[in-house]
């Protein structure tokens, strides 16, 4: 639904394919992908290489004749600095390198996750390392370029030159001039052409971010060694031919538990939106909130009131899910919220703002069915339920919630639009702290 990072392999694939279409010139990029059978699920032990390596060598004979580079292709950077890049290997060594690291958990800038995908390329000896970066911003694009690229780019940041290209303007030599003015004459023309084609390609393919750090000159021709890219996935409807078989991987470190991937599966199947992330399985405050904006604010408020450590999850349902979808969704949330009862009290916050047109009573029916089913679990977990919602037919929905409390014998506090939206967060905190 927005800007999505793509793998280095796909960035290079798109650049290679469309550079030729847009300029008539060939880029010598060669790369292959080696991936695991499992991508998102949290069972690393089952992980193995899915790519058929023999088939790969048959298709790309340079793999067996040249020295190679292999690195994880997992949307994180600083791989060289973290010792995750291997240089000048032959293909057998690459296979060993991959097997040793596939499914191994690594930590990058605070995010932990298994490595599932690698990119393999020929080793390219080179002298200069250039830096190129294009970012889409509100009024245009900014293009940054440096002759001192590579892993020390940040140390050499003062050598990076940046220009802005206003929306709708083309990248004329005048606009481009500050980037390439200081380059030696023999390479200036080639690099200026390269930047221009890459910029055209950036807009043509709805990139929102593109970085080559570094790219080199091989036989006088630009060759991106390392690439990062982000596409605007809302433009998929006009680009699916150009993008080809593109993958939008989840952010690195976002591995899903079985319950999370179950909800993710529900979400993919419906036109509604169903989101569920466990933040702390041992948390004592759990939320199930209608609406994208409101769900974030409920999670915020528990944290802002000082109880982030007790927040079990983030959960959003919106876009008019069907009763059965809400039922399945609520079951999962309640199961997680009531798991491993420890004698301490817990709170379930069933919140929401004042709906525009959603029938509140109708969306509550699925939740009520789930709560009825889970009566015993709710009691075992000493759960108190706090409800707040407004909008069409809210009186009926709230009345149903109130009578449910009597029916199943679980305390349910119910509020409508006369109360503040997040007042029940405060109540939930008071409940779990008072009774503790």
């Amino acid at each position, binding site marked *: *639904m927005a800007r999505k990072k793509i793998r280095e392999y796909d960035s290079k694939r798109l650049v290679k394919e469309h550079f030729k279409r847009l300029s008539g010139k060939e880029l010598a990029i060669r790369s292959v992908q080696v991936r695991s059978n499992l991508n998102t699920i949290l069972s690393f032990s089952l992980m193995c290489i899915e790519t058929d390596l023999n088939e790969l060598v048959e298709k790309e004979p340079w793999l067996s004749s040249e020295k190679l580079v292999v690195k994880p292709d997992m949307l994180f950077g600083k791989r060289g600095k973290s010792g995750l890049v291997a240089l000048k290997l032959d293909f057998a060594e690459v296979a060993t390198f991959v097997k040793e690291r596939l499914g191994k958990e690594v930590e990058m800038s605070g995010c932990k996750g298994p490595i599932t995908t690698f990119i393999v390329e020929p080793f390219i000896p080179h002298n200069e390392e250039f830096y190129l970066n294009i970012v889409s911003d509100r009024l245009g694009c900014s293009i940054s370029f440096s002759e001192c690229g590579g892993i020390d780019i940040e140390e050499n940041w003062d050598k990076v030159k940046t220009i802005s290209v206003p929306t709708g303007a083309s990248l004329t030599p005048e606009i481009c001039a500050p980037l390439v003015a200081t380059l030696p004459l023999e390479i200036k023309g080639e690099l200026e052409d390269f930047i221009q084609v890459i910029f055209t390609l950036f807009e043509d393919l709805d990139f929102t971010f593109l970085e080559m750090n570094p790219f080199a000159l091989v036989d006088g021709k630009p060759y991106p060694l390392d690439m990062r890219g982000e596409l605007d996935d809302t433009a998929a409807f006009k680009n699916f031919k150009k993008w080809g078989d593109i993958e939008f991987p989840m952010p690195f470190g976002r591995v899903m538990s079985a319950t999370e991937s179950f909800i993710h599966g529900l979400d993919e199947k419906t036109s509604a939106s169903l989101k569920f992330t466990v933040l702390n399985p041992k948390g004592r405050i759990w939320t199930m909130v209608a609406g994208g904006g409101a769900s974030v604010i409920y999670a915020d408020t528990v*944290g802002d009131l000082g109880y982030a450590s007790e927040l079990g999850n983030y959960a959003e349902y919106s876009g008019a899910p069907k009763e059965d979808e809400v039922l399945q969704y609520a079951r999962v949330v309640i199961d997680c919220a009531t798991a491993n009862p420890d004698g301490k009290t817990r709170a379930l916050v069933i919140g929401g*703002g004042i709906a525009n047109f959603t029938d509140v009573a109708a969306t509550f029916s699925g939740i009520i069915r789930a709560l009825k089913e889970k009566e015993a679990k709710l009691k075992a977990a000493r759960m108190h339920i706090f409800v707040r919602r407004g909008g069409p037919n809210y009186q009926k929905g709230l009345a149903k919630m109130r009578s449910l409390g009597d029916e199943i014998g679980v305390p349910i506090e119910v509020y409508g639009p006369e109360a503040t939206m997040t007042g029940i967060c405060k109540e939930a905190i008071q409940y779990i702290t008072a009774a503790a």
Partner: protein
Amino acid sequence: MATGQLFSRTTQALFYNYKQLPVQRMLDFDFLCGRETPSVAGIINPGSEGFQKLFFGQEEIAIPVHAAIEAACAAHPTADVFINFASFRSAAASSMAALKQPTIKVVAIIAEGVPELDTKQLIAYACANNKVLIGPATVGGIQAGAFKIGDTAGTIDNIIHCKLYRPGSVGFVSKSGGMSNEMYNTVARVTDGIYEGIAIGGDVFPGSTLSDHILRFNNIPQIKMMVVLGELGGRDEYSLVEALKQGKVNKPVVAWVSGTCARLFKSEVQFGHAGAKSGGEMESAQAKNQALIDAGAIVPTSFEALESAIKETFEKLVEEGKVSPIKEVTPPQIPEDLNSAIKSGKVRAPTHIISTISDDRGDEPCYAGVPMSSIIEQGYGVGDVISLLWFKRSLPRYCTKFIEICIMLCADHGPCVSGAHNTIVTARAGKDLVSSLVSGLLTIGPRFGGAIDDAARYFKDACDRNLTPYEFVEGMKKKGIRVPGIGHRIKSRDNRDKRVELLQKFARSNFPTVKYMEYAVQVESYTLSKANNLVLNVDGAIGSLFLDLLAGSGMFTKQEIDEIVQIGYLNGLFVLARSIGLIGHTFDQKRLKQPLYRHPWEDVLYTK
């Protein structure tokens, strides 16, 4: 970006891509505010023109519908707001076309998922031409008591509850459309209400920004304080921070940026809005809230404390005498729509149509209660479908097979019979398929193909009364009625109709009884003794065998059988069957590119 008020009580809009509910909600709001003119001047619905009937209070009004943006702008030169309900695929192109119209000042884009590059082009054009873009991915906005975009502020009940029918003193701007509804309530609870509220939309690059609207609100004298609800992701809030630091805003600003919970997530997180994504530290809710505090905005410690921050700020303004008390008005009652009144059980209305054979309201259509998936999965045929839709029951396979045989046998009978002839002449006159088909069907009646029902009626009556063939035939003769189902122009005793033989053969080996058919055969023996061509024809065979089907299947009561014969079900079989042939003749003539048919003079006897 304009610098002051965008809307007034006379603002009119053009509504692109007609949706009945949002337009009606705008008109209901107008009525509630006591506007004299409806706020929707015209509707643009690509490919259609005319008028759309809608309610303005108790009365119905006709709003002009235009096929093109240019035409609508020319017809309504005073309408300066363009409300775009196009899909995310086409929203950008239609919005650009609207921005290019000199009469249009404000464009609101509702669609979520407009490509970023497309929006950027709209922003560039709007900036260069001093136009205002609201959205994409927004519900719109509202000026209390004056003008409302589309679905903003939800139901009429909510609008009344939040007193949005009359202006208050608070300017509100948020990214989220859903949360703006909540905030209208909050603001109404603790202040004198909203003056104007705008949801800028959740995209990475909204058409107009939080600070654009805050700066505009600062220039509107009726607005005494502002409330801002931002969110994590992007740097929009920093332009507001800059404006505050530069002293461009001299009214109190209460602000909150949501998304402080993003740091609790173990990886990067993308919330529901395209723009609500955790990025660098600068883009976090915490950093933005802090920057707003540093710039002098009133920022609570949590969303829960936002209401009291708004309340205190407003009360301070009241104490300082900066807010003058508002004269409350009672908004008129909006007549309830029949549908919602029925739904809530307040009124009841008689239906005008009753239907018992099919229902298209559920997950899949049902024929006589049988869902489409069972029909397909259980391998039902056309005969089964006919038995469901005509007889409202599943008949045994031999019955439905018989129905199918009847249809196959009667599908066509060459180009010379009256139906096919008419169809051919009509097709050759250049008429369309339906015209050609019905001109052929219209010949079906007492003389052509319409004898099945009559044959069944008379055979049934005679057989049930135990008349001998002699009594039956002679009785008919006395009444001057030819026996239907008997007689053929070409066929005779020695040249039987093959179709009749096939039907009889099938029935003898599949039907439990063939009482009526045997009776018809006895009648035929008698009539053949009178003339060689008085054979049982195909109408008579189908008519009598259908009686056997109805009686022998055990699935129909006597009354039902009488009713089926009475209503004329059986001619339905002929009409259905022959339609197949007539459609074929139409296609045949069109394929052969046959010219207009003209009957030759030589073939007409001209006489006095």
